[in-house]
Structure formats: C-alpha cells, structure tokens
C-alpha cells in the first residue's frame, strides 16, 4: 500500500532485488518505440527487451548473409550496440525501430561479408533446424514470412533475382552486373523497379507493416 495512493509516483526500493531476478520481458507490453526511448536512457533491460523481440531475426539475417556463426554474432552485436549508442537520435517519423535495427544488421553483415570475401555461394537458405519458440511469436513470424515470400514470388524473375542476390548475398550492383552478364544500368533498373513493386505490394499488407508508419 505504501506505493499506492498519491501522485504519479514510482517507488523503487524493495523492487530492485525482485527486478534483478526477472527478465526484460517485463517491458513486453511496451511499443517498440517506447523500448527504444528507454534504450536512449541507457536502460539495459530495454536493450535486452529489444534483443528478445528482434534478436532471432537479426541473427537469422546475419547468418544467412555470412554463413558463419562468429561473424553473424559480430554483426548482430554491432547492430545492437549501434542502437545503444544512437537511440537518442532515433526519430520514429523516419522509420520503425525494427527497420532501423534490421538495417544496421544488414549493413554490418554486408560489410563483413565483403571484407571477409566469404559467402559467394548462391543465396539459398542455409540448412538450419527450425527452432521452437513462443507460439505467438512463431505464428507472427511465420505470417510475416509467408507474406514477404508471396510478394517476392509475384515479382518478375529477373527483378527478384537482383534483389535477392543483393539483399541476401551482399553483392554490389557492379558485382551483380558482372555476375549476371548485364549492363550496370539494367541491374540498377531491376533493383529499383523490383523494390518499388515490392513496396507497393507490401504496403497494402499491414502484417509486414512496411511503408509509412
């Protein structure tokens, strides 16, 4: 009762030890934006919460590009530290937190793969064991995956190829031109048209939630 009653007051004492034994999931009800706002205040629990929300996706993406556990971990760590350092500058008008984080992961993974000169195989799905996670999260992810997969399937093959090789393979546009034996202009055009089409397609689908928030 001592914490109840008057004013908008938060009491901490007596909760600290309790907190240390609990997990970041206590922040689970907050929006991604609110979690990032807490990260901006150097709240480690908020950073952990962000990891719980997007860690698997981040690692999955990095692993797909890098095909290497250690490098993928590095990419994910760098991305989360990027969020940790810059959360105060994050503006929700520009992007969703998930977009921001995944962009950091992707950029980092692509830089690493180029530096390491690894990958360079077809951007097929690496063979992995599916993991059992929380049912709700799983269903959500599966739905989103289905959505993006179908949207990709609707693209003309050559646009899809350019986008997948660039995004999952980490190829530059010049490398793509060489690899596919097409003029650079054609590659640029395929990526632009394909991505614009995908944007339009996904924009109509709130489940993936791309497009203006």
């Amino acid at each position: 009762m001592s914490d109840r009653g008057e004013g908008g007051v938060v009491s901490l004492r007596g909760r600290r030890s309790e907190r240390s034994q609990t997990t970041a999931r206590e922040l689970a009800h907050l929006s991604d934006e609110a979690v990032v706002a807490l990260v901006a205040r150097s709240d480690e629990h908020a950073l952990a919460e962000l990891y719980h929300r997007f860690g698997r996706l981040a690692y999955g993406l990095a692993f797909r590009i890098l095909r290497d556990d250690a490098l993928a971990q590095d990419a994910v760590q760098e991305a989360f530290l990027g969020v940790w350092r810059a959360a105060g500058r994050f503006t929700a008008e520009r992007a969703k937190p998930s977009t921001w984080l995944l962009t950091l992961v992707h950029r980092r993974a692509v830089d690493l793969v180029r530096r390491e000169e690894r990958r360079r195989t077809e951007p097929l799905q690496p063979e992995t064991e599916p993991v059992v996670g929380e049912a709700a999260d799983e269903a959500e992810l599966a739905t989103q995956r289905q959505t993006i997969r179908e949207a990709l399937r609707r693209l003309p093959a050559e646009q899809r190829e350019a986008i997948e090789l660039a995004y999952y393979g980490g190829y530059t546009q010049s490398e793509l031109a060489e690899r596919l034996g097409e003029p650079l202009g054609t590659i640029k055009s395929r990526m632009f048209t394909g991505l614009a089409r995908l944007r339009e397609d996904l924009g109509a689908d709130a489940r993936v939630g791309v497009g203006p928030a």
Partner: protein
Amino acid sequence: MNDGSPHELSAAYALDALDGDEREAYETHLAGCERCREDVASFRATASALAYDVDLPPLPETLEHRIIAAARAEHPNVVPLRQRLAIPAAALGAVAAVAAIAIGIWAIHLSNSLDHQKAIRKDQKAVIDVLSDCSTTPTQGSTGAVCVAPTEKAVLIADSLPAASPGKTYEAWVITGKRVQPAGLFRGGAGRKYVLLTKPVRAPAKVAVTLEKRGGVSAPTTAILLQAEVKPS
C-alpha cells in the same frame, strides 16, 4: 527511370548494394535531397521486410549476455538532445527506475475509478514521453531534478525524501510569477520517485515541494523542502 541520375540509386542504397565509394557519394547526395531521403526511408522499410524470409537458426546462448555486457562497458550513450537528466544516465538507479515505471510499479490517486488501470498505463507513458525528451534542472534542497519536455509537461524526480508520515503528503507546486498552482501529491520514501506534474511548467518557473496534510492543500502552508528554478532554454 534509368537516366543515370543519383535518384534511382535509392533502391540500391537501401539494399546495401553500393560499394564503399558509391555509398559515400550517394550519402553526400542524400544530404541535400529530401525526395531521396524519403525514397530511401520507404525502401529501407521494404528491404528490411526481406529479413523476415530467412530461416531462424537457434540463437547462440551467450549472445545476449555478450551484447548487454558490451553495452554496459561503453560509456552511457551520448544523447545529443536537450534532455540530459542531471542524474547520471548510467546510474543503475535511474535505469531501473525508468524501467520500473514501465513495469507498472506505479501509483496514482484516482478515487474509486474503474479507469484506474488505464490511467496508470497512460501516466506511465506520459512519464516515459517526458523523460525521453526533456531538459533537466537539478533541485536545491534534497537531491532531485525537474525535467521539462518541450510540451511543458514535466516530471519531478525526487531522491530519498523520507516517507511522509501518516496523515501527511508531499505536494508539488508550480510557481509562475506570483501564481502558485498545486501540481500533484506523492508520498516520498526511500529510492527515487518520479512524479508527473499535473500542471505544465512554462519557464521561467519554479517547481517546489512542501509537506502538507493528507489529501493536499490548495496553497502551500509549510516551508519548501526542495525546489528547482526552471529557466528558459
């Protein structure tokens, strides 16, 4: 479309398909091209949706710990906003406190209202909103601070005010010129308290706290225990 202008590079940029030099050149272009920034923002969102179409291998067990440890080892993140709480941002107390707001260790006076829970959540959000962008004035007297958002919403942060005895309450005041407005009641006690002020703070103004009888009063009757002069920024 394919006119060789930098505009169409927005897609390649969003897919990270530019090499180092191209990327740098494009970022220079971006700085002066609002349309391109909008393009990139929406293409980024589309590109990151592609991340959902990957298999999800098991997360390495130690990765979370590694990330948190690395974050902790860094100096607290530099926040180039006005905000800047006077309390050291890295102090675990503050960190846990803000988190505590989020988890709902929260009390608000709302006499027999069915909207109690809803109002609590709303207030938590209000406090987080204020704290995420506010400028801070430390208090004199007891340790604490007042953090005022650009919206003039304000949060009083009070450290270790002794718990008010039964029948008493702390009362916050917003004093603007000669006008003294009651701005919320709280109980005090060990640890850090966050009090969302019920009145806006329009600088120059003073935020003060007195000890009053339970239920609060409409004008202060006792000496000021702590106060902060909020100056125009």
